[in-house]
């Protein structure tokens, strides 16, 4: 086999099933690729060579079969993996080895998917560039001087650099889709509650959604099917059948979108996007119309308040979720010299262990929940959330899916948006409304702007994840996939 790392997950699974290649060979090829390029990409925080090879060997021994058996995967470092370091890219969890697997990790293992390692991210999934990782940023394989998106930049870059055929991401405000867009890969945020959060280190509980990342729509759907489904350990998990996303992706591949109504959000079509992004989006729409789709403009008047509402709700929940990191039971403990009080040690631990963006959001959230401010901030943001949900619901009475660019701009150079948090937050302008609503959305590569990938976002109603896969696969068949320059 010439280069196993260039193949799709679907093809790898088929070759392994037919025993034309062993799972160990596939895992080894990817581990070797990581060893060769990751000093430049820095997609991984931890590589588990032994664990991956052992899992691959079990598939080769015929112990596990299944649609993705033997296909290796990279897991975002915010998801717990038993005995394998899980840090959420934070100093406060440096070296922490969880005693348990996240539900989705259990499902990957049960499906016979070797876990290559843990991928880099913005600390606690807060950021859009990986520049807030406590362990240094990930470099975009398209241009090593640019960001790979965030927070799941490591997972997206691992795919674009052919270090892994599949990856797990988590999406709270766009952390799967925006990295997918700027690395020319596919990333899907399932319906909230469609994938279990058990073992996902919480940032914002009501928004966090684990999801699949891959280089093709079909691979993304295959992974989606493995990880989705009800989990009794997550109270917010939905106890309903998972939509048949694999079949939808295969259906879309045929390139027929007759009768499908695409809604273009009026409020997103202003001058928010870079010209190159807007142009690629427009070309893609035309391509979809050629496949039989109908384009309708719809108004979602409250989307303009999504960003401020998100930056109250997410920090509020984060300020509470991150309270457990106090140095008492696990992770970093700072200043415990035998003279300092417990309270001082907790405070010094959090001072030393959290980075600037995490601290910023904890402070915003603490303020927003404070007595006397709650109604004006958190309470008001929840009302906006309800209005945004209604915007989606009324839009989906008119159209099957909503479409937009995934993010207003292509991969930007390091350091260009860190001085002004708001400039960084704008990266998620188009992705955040979906998180507030809870529906599914996918980003699929749709073109290049000045040599850098542009993402096309498809948003669907809750529990209609299959719809977005159909449109995404159709678009992929029309515009093709995009390969970065050799590293």
């Amino acid at each position: 086999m010439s280069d196993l790392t260039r193949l799709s997950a679907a093809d790898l699974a088929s070759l392994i099933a037919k025993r034309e290649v062993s799972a160990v060979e596939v895992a080894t090829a990817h581990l070797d690729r990581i060893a060769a390029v990751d000093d430049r990409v820095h997609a991984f925080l931890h590589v588990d060579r032994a664990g991956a090879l052992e899992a691959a060997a079990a598939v080769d021994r015929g112990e596990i079969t299944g649609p993705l058996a033997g296909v290796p995967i990279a897991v975002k470092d915010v998801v717990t993996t038993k005995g394998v370091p899980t840090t959420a890219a934070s100093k406060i969890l440096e070296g922490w080895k969880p005693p348990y697997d996240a539900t989705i990790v259990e499902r990957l293992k049960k499906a016979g998917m070797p876990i290559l390692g843990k991928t880099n991210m913005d600390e606690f999934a807060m950021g859009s560039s990986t520049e807030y990782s406590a362990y240094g940023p990930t470099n975009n394989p398209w241009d090593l001087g640019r960001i790979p998106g965030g927070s799941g930049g490591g997972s997206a870059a691992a795919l674009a650099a052919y270090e892994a055929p599949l990856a797990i991401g988590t999406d709270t405000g766009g952390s799967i889709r925006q990295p997918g867009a700027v690395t020319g890969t596919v990333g899907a945020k399932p319906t909230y509650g469609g994938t279990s959060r058990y073992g996902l280190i919480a940032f914002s509980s009501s928004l966090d959604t684990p999801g699949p990342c891959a280089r093709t729509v079909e691979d993304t759907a295959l992974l989606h099917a493995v990880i989705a489904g009800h989990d009794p350990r997550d109270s917010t998990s939905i106890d309903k059948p998972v939509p048949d996303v694999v079949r939808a992706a295969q259906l879309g591949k045929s390139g027929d979108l007759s009768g499908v109504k695409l809604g273009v959000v009026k409020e997103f079509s202003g001058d928010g996007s870079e010209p190159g992004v807007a142009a690629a989006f427009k070309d893609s729409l035309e391509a979809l119309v050629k496949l039989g789709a109908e384009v309708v403009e719809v108004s979602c008047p409250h989307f303009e308040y999504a960003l401020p509402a998100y930056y109250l709700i997410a920090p509020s929940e984060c300020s509470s979720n991150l309270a457990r990191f106090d140095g008492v039971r696990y992770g970093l403990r700072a200043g415990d010299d035998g003279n300092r009080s417990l309270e001082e040690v907790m405070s010094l631990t959090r001072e030393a262990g959290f980075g600037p963006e995490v601290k910023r959001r904890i402070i915003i959230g603490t303020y927003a929940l404070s007595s006397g401010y709650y109604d004006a901030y958190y309470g008001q943001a929840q009302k906006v959330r309800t209005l945004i949900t209604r915007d989606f619901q009324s839009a989906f009475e008119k159209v099957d899916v909503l479409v937009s660019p995934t993010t207003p701009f292509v991969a930007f150079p390091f350091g260009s948006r860190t001085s002004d948090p708001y400039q960084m937050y704008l990266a998620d302008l188009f992705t955040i409304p979906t998180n507030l609503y809870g529906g599914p959305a996918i980003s699929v590569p749709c073109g290049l702007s000045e040599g850098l990938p542009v993402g096309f976002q498809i948003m669907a109603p809750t529990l209609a994840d299959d719809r977005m896969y159909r449109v995404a696969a159709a678009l992929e068949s029309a515009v093709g996939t995009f390969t970065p320059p050799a590293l």
Partner: protein
Amino acid sequence: MSYEEILTRYEPVIGLETHVELGTATKMFCGCKTDFGAEPNTQVCPVCLALPGALPVMNRAAIEATIRIGLALNCDIAEWCRMARKNYFYPDMPKNFQTSQYDEPLCVDGYVDVEVDGVTHRIGIERVHIEEDTGKTLHVGGATGRIHGATESLVDYNRAGIPLVEIVTKPVPGLGGLAPEIAKAYVAELRDIIRSLGVSDVRMEQGSMRCDVNTSLNRPGEEWGTRTETKNVNSLRSVERAVRSEIIRQSAILDDGGKIHQETRHFHEDRGDTSPGRSKETATDYRYFPEPDLVPIAPDPAWVATLKAALPEKPSAKRARLREEWGITELDMQSVANAGAVEIIEETIAAGASPAGARKWWMGELARRANELNVELTAVGATPAQVAALQKLVDEGKLNDKLARTVLEGVVAGEGDPAEVMAARGLEVVNDTGALTAAVDEAIAANPDIAAKIRDGKIAAAGALVGAVMKTTRGQADAKTVRELLLERLGVS
């Protein structure tokens, strides 16, 4: 200033917040056991240790128990409510927030009727909500056992996540000088109601029931005064003493023209008074918000109706019925209830004992022993059937009172049923007339002076000779039989 005199010038308003630890087999949000007294940190898991990524899932049994408590307290049950996070940092709270309820409690607007001196007082219930318990912190190396000055703090998370129910009364005005007594009676009634539901062992001394007492004073016709919240009230007696001591303390301040500060105070069992704790002005802002990790609680009204229909007989009604059946005074019934002995005495009577006999053993010897061992009566080592059998042996004259106590010692020591213990230890009353006659003759021979007095008609002197016989038979004789025999031998019967 006498207490009675204070009550001529001030009117107290009280309120009680009671925490009850539910006796569910597992914790509120995970499958960990809730056994009392286990080795520290052995009943823990990723969820109750708040490991990164772990999530709570609500224990249905805890919701059911809370709803049953609410129904028994005549509350309305919410058709839809949510848990809330109460945020504050403390090392015995693994998440550094407590999952509780805030403005959407599960049960609201009920009441408890409390009877004191034949008068019924209705105590309004504001709310009944569910929350989780914290761990336990042990501060080592300090003089006070508190966090200040300690060199090390040890935390046991076994208790973290055990379900707690908080029952909050409405403010209760108009009780006058009876406020302390009614407060105590309310807590006793609440305890009996919860015990009758079988959802908690409600033991104040073990902390499975804890009480905070709010007290304020106002002059007649004026608005209610500023209240204080007294914590660390760990027995029924302390509830009464805490209210009384706050009334006295606050009245002295008000008499001097001073102001009552809204604050938390600690009750001191030994001194019977309170000292200031945390002031409310510096209290933590808990930043409550709805718990996003848990779906709302929406109990099916049909299920609630089923639970309501299956509620047990009210303890007050049951006590009235049993008092009648047993033929005892209200005061005696109250002590039975306070000792948690109603059910066990009922069962002993069902096993064949007379009400007086059953009550005598459980409220006497066995209550004493339970107290010494600090266990429930049910765990004292004797069953209702054994106690009934013991009383039967007494009634049949096979054991006298003293011997029966010795037999009971053997029963609780696990030596078997009363008849077995009696046989094994050779404790049966000596009814063998030959042996007794010999002992009586021996006593007469050894005390000729006393015998002469009796023969002369001084029957009262017989006691001394009966005593002597009892001594030689090591108490195993029946005193009445001995007396009869003695008089017969002396020819005065």
